[in-house]
């Protein structure tokens, strides 16, 4: 089964100082697909996400989104084109309420004009979708706990009506129960038909959710395939040997 192509990363390299974080990586994401980016710590997964949302600029290589070259665009531009996501460290506007935080995404994250009131309604809707607690809707972000912040962040990303949702370690730092609920929400998002590119540490999460898995090690792609194929790939097993604890989780 072939679906239309949404994102295409071509020969992307990025280094910080002398350290190469991402090296010559190629991969593609098809529409309505859930793709997992895995690899040990420091493999360049988050860097790759940040290159796609244009937080970082790649040294070489091209990124195509819906057939358009986005390699020279800025974050706010690709956001309006439909790429949105969450970051590993919860990023919120501390002096705004949960609703205000999310409505920023509605107001600025997508093309077209939205009034402040419409944005507020939409924000409540999205917050409910991510099962954010009703009585914290008007709480300032700086007074929310980490799990609540993660939901706000997810809601912010969804509020921009993304075509491609980038998720960076949504379960990291959460308790077991919170983690399970986060995965449930991702399943719900998937049902809406949103394409997802997710970085995840925990193999179990990837195995259960993804259509395709890409494995990075030291900035290079070492494997790509269905979860099952990847799990049996020798190179992957080798690269994970040093981090067996992560693999076994």
């Amino acid at each position, binding site marked *: 089964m072939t679906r239309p192509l949404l994102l295409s990363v071509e020969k992307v390299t990025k280094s910080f100082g002398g350290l190469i974080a991402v090296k010559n990586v190629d991969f593609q994401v098809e529409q309505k697909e859930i793709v997992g980016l895995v690899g040990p710590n420091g493999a360049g997964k988050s860097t790759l996400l940040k290159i796609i949302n244009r937080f970082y600029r790649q040294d070489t290589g091209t990124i195509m989104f819906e057939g358009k070259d986005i390699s020279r665009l800025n974050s706010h531009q690709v956001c309006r084109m439909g790429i949105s996501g969450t970051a590993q460290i919860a*990023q919120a506007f*501390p002096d705004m309420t949960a609703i205000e935080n999310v409505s920023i*995404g509605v107001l*600025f994250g997508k093309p077209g004009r939205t009034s*402040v009131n419409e944005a507020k309604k939409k924000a409540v809707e999205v917050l409910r979708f991510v099962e954010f607690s009703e009585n914290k809707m008007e709480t300032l972000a700086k007074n929310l706990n980490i799990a609540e912040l993660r939901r706000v962040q997810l809601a912010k990303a969804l509020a921009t009506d993304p075509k491609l949702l980038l998720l960076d370690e949504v379960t990291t730092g959460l308790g077991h129960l919170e983690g399970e609920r986060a995965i449930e929400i991702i399943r719900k998002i998937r049902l809406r038909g949103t394409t997802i590119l997710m970085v995840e540490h925990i193999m179990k999460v990837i195995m259960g959710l993804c259509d395709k898995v890409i494995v990075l090690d030291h900035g290079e792609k070492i494997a790509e395939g269905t979860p099952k194929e990847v799990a049996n790939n020798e190179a992957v097993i080798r690269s994970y040997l040093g981090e067996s604890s992560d693999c076994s989780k």
Partner: protein
Amino acid sequence: MPLEISLSTLVQIVIWGLINGCIYVLLASGLNLIFGVMKVVNFAHGEFMILGGYVSYWVSIYAGLNPYFSIFVSIGVIGIVGVLTERVCFRRVLGTSKLNEIVLSLGLIYVLQNAMSVLWTDKERQISSPFEFITVHFEIININMRLDLLIVIGVTVLIMAGFYILIKRTKIGRAIRATSQNRSAAMLMGINVEYMDMFSFGLGTALAATAGTLLAILFPALYPQAGAMPALKAFTIIVLGGLGSTIGAIVGGLAYGLAESSAIAILGGTWRDAIAFAILILVLVIRPTGLFGEKEA
């Protein structure tokens, strides 16, 4: 200060404090906005204020416009000057190093001061108001007040109310707040932060222009070097009110104005400017985050 100070004298001292406070509120709010969004201290803020005063002075003389209406011309002109300054100067050095930003805004002080010297000479000027000779009597506290003082308070309230609504209620206000609270998150949420820099700088300098016009209507304080001390005081006020806090700048500005007039009344006129440093040091020692500021998460 005589201990048997009468109520009307006390009221008047408070009024002088609040009127100066109005000017400081306008000046500090602009400085605060620029700092909030760009994380840059615009040391040349006082010069934009004086430049705004001169624009109003020119417009009121050559176009014969009522000085209170010339504020709007001044807001427009200085707003554009501010936007261009951001685009041409600050955009280039923003984020390179703090030192570059400081040197740039210090350099702007001299460029603007010299430009003003060439255009308007070093002579002190005052904008003359058509209501110069009108006073209003308040029976209850038995004081006479110059009408212009009431207008200055009124204009400040209107401008600050407008500014507050802009920041709190409008779409662009949300974008400004988002950018100042978390620049990278704002960027990832589709906000063009470079546009926000330009807009905030222009809006901040336009507020300074309002302050400059009102100052020049009340006092003969229009000369090229006149901006230095008020800018320093505005900086003290935003530290006092809490960096980045809009309410902090308003409360801080009024409180500072009151502190200044009380200092003159209690300690003597020579303490007027010294009080700024005293407050700055005191706040930095006792509550470095200011009255309305909080530690960054």
